[in-house]
């Protein structure tokens, strides 16, 4: 049970359309910092959706953190995601009507398990700590609409990390940042993942960052649906 991700004969398509994912096998050790690479349209985001339990595979086996997602109901998958997965989007990660602090605290407030894992520290304190680690501690009271893109992504990272989920999924979180900022952002993200012992799946179409990761997965190579 040391696998964070274990996919077997996974096939997925939207509605009755063509197959988007056809992955015979894909596994990922826990604690890995994986770089999932693929050009646009190679099914990166779709794969993340399947891993997060938002999209349901039509065929095959999807085990995430040892849990067979196919055996879970929709509500159970939602609860599973809330408890075990932190998700960072490419951009526009934040809920506009919540403050920075509230955005970070959202998963902990949404899920009791995440809250329980705060080890007695309050949601606010934990959020503040995380924000300090990611060097946005001075922005907590600001409305999110006043943040720069880089700041927004850090807030999103804090939100993904709060309550120590085992799996962090990041969908091109650095694509809107310039190179220097990308590296700085990644350094911080790695640091926090290590601190929490989380597995990181980082998706990008930009191979320049590849060297910073412990493992690289080329999606076109594993996904047979892409011709």
């Amino acid at each position, binding site marked *: 049970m040391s696998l964070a991700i274990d996919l077997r004969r996974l096939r997925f398509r939207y509605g009755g359309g063509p197959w988007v994912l056809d992955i015979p096998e894909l596994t990922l050790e826990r604690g890995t910092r994986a770089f999932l690479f693929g050009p646009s349209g190679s099914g990166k985001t779709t794969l993340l959706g399947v891993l*997060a339990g938002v*999209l349901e595979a039509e065929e095959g086996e999807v085990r995430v953190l040892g849990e067979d997602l196919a055996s879970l109901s*929709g509500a159970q998958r939602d*609860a599973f995601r809330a408890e075990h997965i932190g998700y960072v*989007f*490419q951009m526009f990660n934040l*809920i506009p009507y*919540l403050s920075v602090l509230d955005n970070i605290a959202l998963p902990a407030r949404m899920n009791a398990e995440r809250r329980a894992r705060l080890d007695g520290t309050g949601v606010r304190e934990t959020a503040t700590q995380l924000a300090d680690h990611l060097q946005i501690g001075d922005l907590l009271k600001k409305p999110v609409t006043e943040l720069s893109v880089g700041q927004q992504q850090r807030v999103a990272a804090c939100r993904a990390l709060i309550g120590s989920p085992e799996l962090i999924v990041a*969908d091109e979180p650095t694509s809107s940042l310039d190179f220097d900022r990308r590296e700085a952002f990644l350094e911080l993200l790695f640091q926090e993942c290590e601190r929490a012992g989380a597995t990181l799946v980082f998706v990008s179409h930009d191979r320049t960052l590849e060297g910073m990761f412990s493992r690289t997965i080329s999606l076109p190579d594993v996904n047979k649906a892409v011709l």
Partner: protein
Amino acid sequence: MLIFDLALKSLRNRAFSTSLTVGSIALSVALLMGVENVRVGMRESFSNTISQTDLIVGTKGGTIQLLLYSVFGMGAPTENVSWEAYREWADHPAVEWTIPYGLGDSHRGFRVIGTNEDFYRHYRYRGGQQIALAEGRANEGLFDVTLGADVAAELNYALGDEIAVTHGLGEVGFINHDHMPFTVTGVLAKTFTPVDRAIYVTLEGMEAIHWEDGAPPASDDEHDHEAEAQAAPSDDGHAHEDEAEAAHDDDHAHDDEAEAAHDEDGHDHDDDGDAHADEAEAAPADDGHAHDDEAEAQAAPADDGHVHAEDISIEDVEVTQVTSFFVGTTNRRDVLQLQREINDFEDEPMMAVIPGVALNEMWQGLAYAETGLRLVAIFVVLVGLLGMLVSLYTSLNERRREMAILRAVGAGPNRIITLLVLESLCLASAGALAGLTLVYALLAVAQPLVEAQAGLFIPIRPPGSVELLFLGAVVLAGFLMGFVPALKAYRTALHDGLAVRV
């Protein structure tokens, strides 16, 4: 709780569209509540036109007709009730008090009502308020009049003014008898009931007005004669010019009268009247009189000469009839029994109605107007709620990303639906509350104005069951309507997954 918090913050974030939506719902709810309040106010002021009167008694006829002419000053009575019959019922052991009403005359479009001090003593309106005098004193003398508040205001009369009473109920009566002017001795305080639009004289004074048709009754014969003349107050028979002329030549047929009379003197003649046979007979007695003034031509046959106000006093007049009378019983349990007895009265055709019942019956007849008004208000509320639906629905597209984020942090479709339904519920509830507040604020401001301008007293009272029902319906409708954008958001969120497509 989190979702509720999110819903509130989301709404606050869209403050402008939220306040517009709440505002439009509030306005429509205020309209609905306003209509309801005005309706209740109208109904209350309608049924409070008269209170504490157990029975209204008049000659047999339509229930509503009796109510109309006795209480609302509308329509004309057909017959009167004799004084003897009135006294018989007034002295009935079950009867505590009565107010006699003599109707049939007017002054410049306002009804003249003959009554007595019982009116001031026993008449009650709007939950037991008594008739009060704004100035002067109640009419006591034969030619005293007390004016309703509106009459005094509209005709600009003051105490001491002399007014002439017109026979008949039209704006322009058939005769003005300036020889019997009444003097204004008092003005009543405003009641916002038809009392304000009436002029009060004594029953004796009322009787005196009718001497045009006969004479101060000296014997029983003349009693009957006068009763007859009065029984048909709106009859055409009061074209007195013709009567005067006809009096000179009682053998003439109607068509010839005018001509015949014309030959005799130089008066101007109209052909539209019938000479009363009685008058034609009676008139020769005072031949030679009454040529100087048309109105005086009917001067009393028994009396030599005209009747002038200063010549007679109230003791000289014997009241012979009343049009209707109000009854208060000693014990309310006797009302139905008394009503039955009066309805079965054999000496004269009489009828007693219970004002509450008759008012209710009348109001039922007006119910369609109420329903229409209410229907319009309900549609306005629906339009307000549809506005909310449109606003929520159109905001969904720009909120797709927000939904995807919520999904990503673990919010299931149920929570998405809950969020949107809660938002719509909040909007509807806030609108309903704001509307309620608005309506009470408006009522507080407008109540005195409406009372002064329209004579409609709208009571400020806590929302009644109908209002609460409406408010509940608005909130429920908001709740149900919330499912439309919610289900749309749910489908979009399912389709979008975590892919944020903008």
